[in-house]
């Protein structure tokens, strides 16, 4: 009993310690961001390439499939009520409010977040971070902050692309395959999707919030990794698991705040 209590206590203290380190880390990162932001845009561009451009294929393909499935499923359910004309609205609302930002954040964690963690962890394990410090170059400015900023930019763009491609996928299935009228499809969509409440709040605000969390976790786990191959492996896993949990939890809160009172 005492042993279990102690284990619980150690667990809580350990988590609190990590949270504290992560917060300090975040502050250092923000300070570094301010210091380098306007002097070294090249560093960020390179990172946008590796987290953003390289994530495009998986985002586009997944977006297309998710949209097509939504179209198909929505149609089979709505056609029973004779309401297949609102298919466009159903597809667009699900993508814009939830699936677009959430699924792209989850895919991002798996594709780019884990890579960020592994890269930074490996730089730490091979003493590249240490040697940078010894060369009087702040790794926060040179390594951490550019990657964080690049990720922060990339994920919302990816979420927009995911959502748009998903809607096109839904359009293809609904209009080209199932014969829903194209005009109805779009006009129902436009009638129900609000620019401010759905696109700005749904896609943009959500994906920026997810981006903040996902990239913070990814770079922190890399920087905090135990510099061994096993440590990096664990850190990579933690990035994907923690990001997924954080994104889904945050999504619930944001949904409750944004769409809860309707």
């Amino acid at each position, binding site marked *: 009993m005492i042993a279990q209590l102690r284990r619980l206590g150690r667990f809580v203290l350990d988590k609190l310690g990590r949270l504290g380190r992560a917060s300090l880390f975040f502050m250092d990162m923000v300070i570094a961001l301010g210091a380098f932001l306007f002097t070294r845009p090249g560093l960020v561009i390179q990172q946008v390439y590796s987290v953003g451009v390289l994530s495009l294929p998986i985002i586009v393909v997944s977006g297309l499939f998710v949209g097509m499935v939504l179209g198909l499923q929505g149609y089979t359910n709505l056609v029973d009520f004779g309401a297949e004309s609102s298919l466009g609205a159903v597809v667009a609302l699900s993508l814009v409010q939830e699936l677009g930002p959430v699924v792209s954040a989850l895919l991002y964690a798996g594709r780019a977040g884990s890579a960020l963690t592994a890269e930074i962890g490996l730089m730490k394990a091979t*003493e590249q971070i240490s040697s940078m410090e010894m060369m009087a170059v702040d790794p926060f400015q*040179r390594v951490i902050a550019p990657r964080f900023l690049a990720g922060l930019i990339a994920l919302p763009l990816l979420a927009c692309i995911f959502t748009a491609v998903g809607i096109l996928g839904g359009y293809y299935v609904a209009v080209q395959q199932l014969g829903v009228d194209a005009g109805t499809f779009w006009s129902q969509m436009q009638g129900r999707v609000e620019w401010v409440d759905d696109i700005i709040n749904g896609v943009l605000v959500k994906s920026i919030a997810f981006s903040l969390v996902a990239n913070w976790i990814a770079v922190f786990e890399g920087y905090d990794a135990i510099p061994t191959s096993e440590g990096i492996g664990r850190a990579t896993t933690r990035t994907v698991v923690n990001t997924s949990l954080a994104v889904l939890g945050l999504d619930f809160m944001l949904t409750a705040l944004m769409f809860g009172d309707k």
Partner: protein
Amino acid sequence: MIFDGIDLDIPRGRITVIMGPSGTGKTTLLRLIGGQLRPLTGTIDVAGERVHKLSKPDLYRLRKQMGMLFQSGALFSDLSVFENVAFPIREHTRLPETLIRTLVLMKLESVGLRGAWRLMPNQLSGGMARRVALARAIALDPMLIMYDEPFAGQDPISMGVLVKLIRTLNDALGMTSIVVSHDVQEAASIADYIYLIADGRVMEQGTPETLGQAPSAWARQFMQALPDGPVAFHYPAPDYAADLLSGEVQ
């Protein structure tokens, strides 16, 4: 507790070698000098500045005058050899590209790898990687350079190359060098002064000649690489025969 009342003087312009068994904190010592770790008590002064009391900007200013060669080389794996050596120059100066090119090629020439400037770090052998790292460490002409196990895991030829490089660079550039090593022969051959460290204390110190005279049994064992002596071959254990006969499992 890694160190207990350790006291080292590193003279300017000389090569000081710190030797000791594995796990005695030789690398920790270098990190203390470089300000990456802070001591619980005691003081570390480099060129008249108290390293562990410096603010971050001051520490970074001081580090621009320090070079460190890490055991693994620690080259940036996403940059070419040229860009690795150019890295500190680009970070700390605003020199034009032609001048950077000249500087980098000069540094690479001094370690004999000017022809390898296009290669990526993963195309280099261990010895070459260490030489590139050395060129990077001296890119800004530091006053102090620290070598962390420069000879570990090197074949005899690249070991010889490194020994020669450390000596010539030290003399040519007028640097202060600190070499941490446990390769007795090579380290002794370039040292101006040697500290032997074990159990967190300085066991012996002196020039290679005086240490060769073996003032203590421990130093003799270490310098001559004897398998048994004051440092016992066996890890502390109960009596052998009694242990085998006891029949205890776990």
